[in-house]
C-alpha cells in the first residue's frame, strides 16, 4: 500500500494549508502513524485542537472522516454493527408463502444485506482510505474499551454469523482522550502516543492570525502574550486555544487595536469560565507593575 505522506515537512505544509499549525512533534507522530499503520492516541487539556487534528488530516488527504463519539454506555450495537432485525422480520414474513426451508433462510437473513454498519465497521469496510476518529475514548467504561482492541491492532472485526471482516484498506485512526481516567495498558500499547499541550507563544500567535483573518499582527501578538501570561497563573481552568481565538475575535469585533489592562479585565469572561479564576487574574493584573515602581 502506498504511504499517504512523503515526509514530515510536506505533511506540516499540508496541514498549514488547511489552517492547522502543527509543531514538529505533532506532524512527526502523524507521519509515523501512517508509516507504521498504527492508531494515534491524542491526550491533552481540553480545547487544544485534538479533534481538529483528525479533521484537518482528513481534509489534507481529501478523504472522508468517520467519527465515533464515545459516551458512557456505548456498546457494540452503536460502535461496531447491528443486525437490522426489522428488515429480517419482513424477510421472514414475505417468505412464509413460498415455504422456503430454514437453512436457506437463516443463511439469507444473516448476510450483508441485513447488517447495519456502525462507525468502526464502516471505517474498515470502506473501499477508500478513510480517517477514523474515536472521540473522547476515556468516556467509555473499561470493559467497552476491549471492544476497540481487535480493530486497533488487526484492523478487523469478527462477527459470529459472518466470520471475520478484514480491512480493505488500513484507515488512519485517531483516538482522543481528555484524561478523565487512565486508559488501559492494552489500549495504550497498541497506539502511538501524542500529548498535545498549549502551543508556545509564537505558534499561538500564528494560530490566531490564521483563524482570525481580520486581526492585525500587532494585536495577535498581544493576544498571545496575554494568554500566555494568564496560563502561568495557577487556575482552575487555564484558557484553551479555542478560547484564545474567541477572545481575539471579540476584540476585533469590538474594534480594539491595542490591549491594555482595562480591556483585558472587561473581556476576561471570554477567556476564563470560573468566577474565582476571573477575580484572581484581574487582581493579578491590577497589581502587575506595582512592584516595579
Amino acid at each position, binding site marked *: 500500500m502506498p504511504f499517504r505522506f512523503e515526509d514530515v515537512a510536506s505533511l506540516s505544509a499540508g496541514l498549514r494549508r488547511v489552517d492547522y499549525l502543527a509543531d514538529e512533534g505533532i506532524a512527526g507522530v502523524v507521519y509515523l502513524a501512517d*508509516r507504521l499503520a498504527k492508531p494515534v492516541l491524542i491526550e491533552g487539556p481540553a480545547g487544544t485542537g485534538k479533534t481538529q487534528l483528525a479533521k484537518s488530516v482528513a481534509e489534507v488527504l481529501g478523504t472522508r472522516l468517520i467519527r465515533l463519539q464515545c459516551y458512557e454506555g456505548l456498546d457494540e450495537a452503536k460502535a461496531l454493527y447491528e443486525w437490522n432485525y426489522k428488515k429480517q422480520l419482513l424477510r421472514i414474513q414475505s417468505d412464509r408463502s413460498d415455504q422456503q426451508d430454514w437453512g436457506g433462510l437463516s443463511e439469507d437473513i444473516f448476510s450483508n444485506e441485513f447488517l447495519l454498519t456502525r462507525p468502526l465497521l464502516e471505517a474498515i469496510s470502506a473501499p477508500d482510505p478513510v480517517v477514523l476518529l474515536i472521540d473522547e475514548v476515556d468516556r467509555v467504561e473499561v470493559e467497552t474499551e476491549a471492544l476497540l482492541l481487535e480493530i486497533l491492532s488487526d484492523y478487523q472485526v469478527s462477527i459470529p454469523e459472518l466470520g471475520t471482516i478484514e480491512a480493505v484498506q488500513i484507515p488512519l485512526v485517531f483516538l482522543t482522550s481528555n484524561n*478523565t481516567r487512565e486508559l488501559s495498558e492494552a489500549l495504550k500499547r497498541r497506539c502511538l502516543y501524542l500529548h498535545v499541550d498549549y502551543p508556545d507563544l509564537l505558534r499561538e500567535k500564528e494560530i490566531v492570525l490564521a483563524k482570525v483573518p481580520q486581526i492585525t499582527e500587532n494585536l495577535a501578538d498581544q493576544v498571545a*502574550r496575554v494568554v500566555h501570561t494568564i496560563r502561568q497563573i495557577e487556575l482552575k481552568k487555564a484558557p484553551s486555544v479555542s478560547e484564545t481565538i474567541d477572545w481575539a475575535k471579540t476584540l476585533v469585533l469590538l474594534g480594539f487595536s491595542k490591549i491594555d489592562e482595562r480591556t483585558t479585565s472587561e473581556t476576561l469572561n471570554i477567556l476564563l469560565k470560573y468566577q*474565582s479564576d476571573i477575580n484572581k487574574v484581574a487582581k493579578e*493584573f491590577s497589581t502587575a507593575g506595582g512592584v516595579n515602581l
Partner: protein
Amino acid sequence: MPASHLPASAVATGDALLELLNGFVKELRDVGLAVSLTENLDALEAVKHIPIGDRQTFKTALATTLVKHYNHQQAFDTAFEVYFSLRGKQYDLGADGTADLLSELDDHEATNLQAAAGATENLSPEDLAAMLFDALQRKDPQMLKSVARSAVRLYAQMEPGRPVGGTYYLYRTLRNLDLDNVLERLLQQAQYEQGDLSEFDQRLLRDEYQQRIDQLQQEIEAEIRRRLVADRGAEAMAKTLRKPLPEDVDFMHASREEMASLRKAIYPLTRKLAARLQRKRRHGRKGPLDFRRTVRASLSYGGVLAETKFRNPKPHKPEIFVIADISGSVAAFARFTLQLVYAISGQFSKVRSFVFIDGIDEVTAYFEGAEDINQAVHRVNTEADVVWVDGHSDYGHAFEVFWERFGKDIGPRTSIMILGDARNNYHEAKSWTVKEMQSNARHVYWLNPEPRSYWDTGDSIVGEYAQYCDGAFEARNLRQLEAFVENLA
C-alpha cells in the same frame, strides 16, 4: 529544520543503534516506566522510517512509541539527552563506538550551531555578555543554543574525570552570567526603545523575557549534561541524573521543583479519582429485590414474573474526620492528603478536618465553600490556632484536647484518618485517646509519610498509637496516597 535535506537512504539500521536503543529502553525501565516488548519493537520499526539526520523526529519517534503517559515525559527527556546527546569531536572526547554512528547527526547539528554562532571560539566575557543580551532580545533559539555553549565553555571550567555533579558547574556558569541583572537591563532597554510602557505591558514583557531566560538555563543544563556524558559515559550519567516519577516522589524529601510538579500532578489525579469513584458507585451492585415493582411489571407479561426489579442501592457514605499534623516536616504531606480528601468529598456524607502541632484547631470552615483549595490551605497555614506552647509537635496533648472538645461528635459512622509521622519530641503519648476514638468510631486509620523502616525509631511512637488503629499505612508518595483514599470511599 535540519531535517529533510538528508537522503532518506540514510536510515538507521545496524547493530550499534540496536544496542544503543536497548540500553536506552533499559534505562527507561530502571526509572520506572513500563516499556513492553511490543513497544520496544515498535520503536525499532519507527526509527527505520526516519532519516537519521532528523534529530527532532527521531526523538518524537521514540517518545511516541515508548512513553504513553504525560507525566513520564520529563524522565524520557532526561534519558534521551543522556543516551543520544551530541558526541562529536567538538566535545573533545574520544569517540566510543556509538559516537561514529551518530556522528552524521552530530555534524549536521553542529554545522547549524556553528553557522548560527559564527566563530564563537575564544570569546571574551564582554563579547559573550553582548551576545547573550542580543540572543535574549531576539527570539532566536539557535543563537540561545550557541550562547549556552559558549557560556559553559567559558565559565564552567569543567575538568575531565572530576567527580562533581552537574549542579556545581551549572551554578558556576549562572553566577557568571548574572541573569537577574540581564532581565532588568532588557526591560530598561525595552522601556527606552518603545517609550512609555504601561504596567500591564511591562508585566507581559517581563514574562516573555523570563521565559526566554528559563529556556537559556535549560540549554545550559543540557550542555553541561552533554559534556558530562561525554566524560563519564551514558550509563554512569543516567544513574546520577535519574529522578523519580512524580507519583513516586517522596513527600518528605521533595525539592522545590518536585513540589511544583507534584502540585501539577495532583489536580488531574483528584479529578480522575472522583470520576472513578462515581462510576464505581453507579455500576456497582444492585440493591435487594423490589417485590412490589416486580409484580407490577409482570402485569405486562400476563402475570408471568418475567422481569425482576431491584431497589436502588443506598450506598454507605461514611463521615470522615481528618486529623493532620501540619508541623514543618510533614506539612506537605498533610496538604496533599487534605486536597485529595476534599476532591472526593462528594463521596462522603460529611468531611471535617482538624490540624495540630501542639495545639489543635478545626479548619472545616476554611474548606467549605472555598472555591480555591490552595487558598484554603493557605488559610490553614496562617490562621489556624495550632500552637499551644512552643510549636513543636505534641501528639499527646493535641489528641487529648481533640477528645475533650470533639470526642462527642464521633459516632459509629465516622472514619478517622490521622496524618503524621508521630515524632512526638519525647512528650507523653497519651495513647488512651486513640483507644477511646477507636471504641466510638467506625474505623481509625493512621497515615505515615515516613518509610516503614523508620517507624518507632528515635522519637517516633507510631507503634504505640497504631495498636489502637484499624490500620497504619505508609503513604510516602502520591501513588500510595491515592490507593489508600480510593479504598476509603
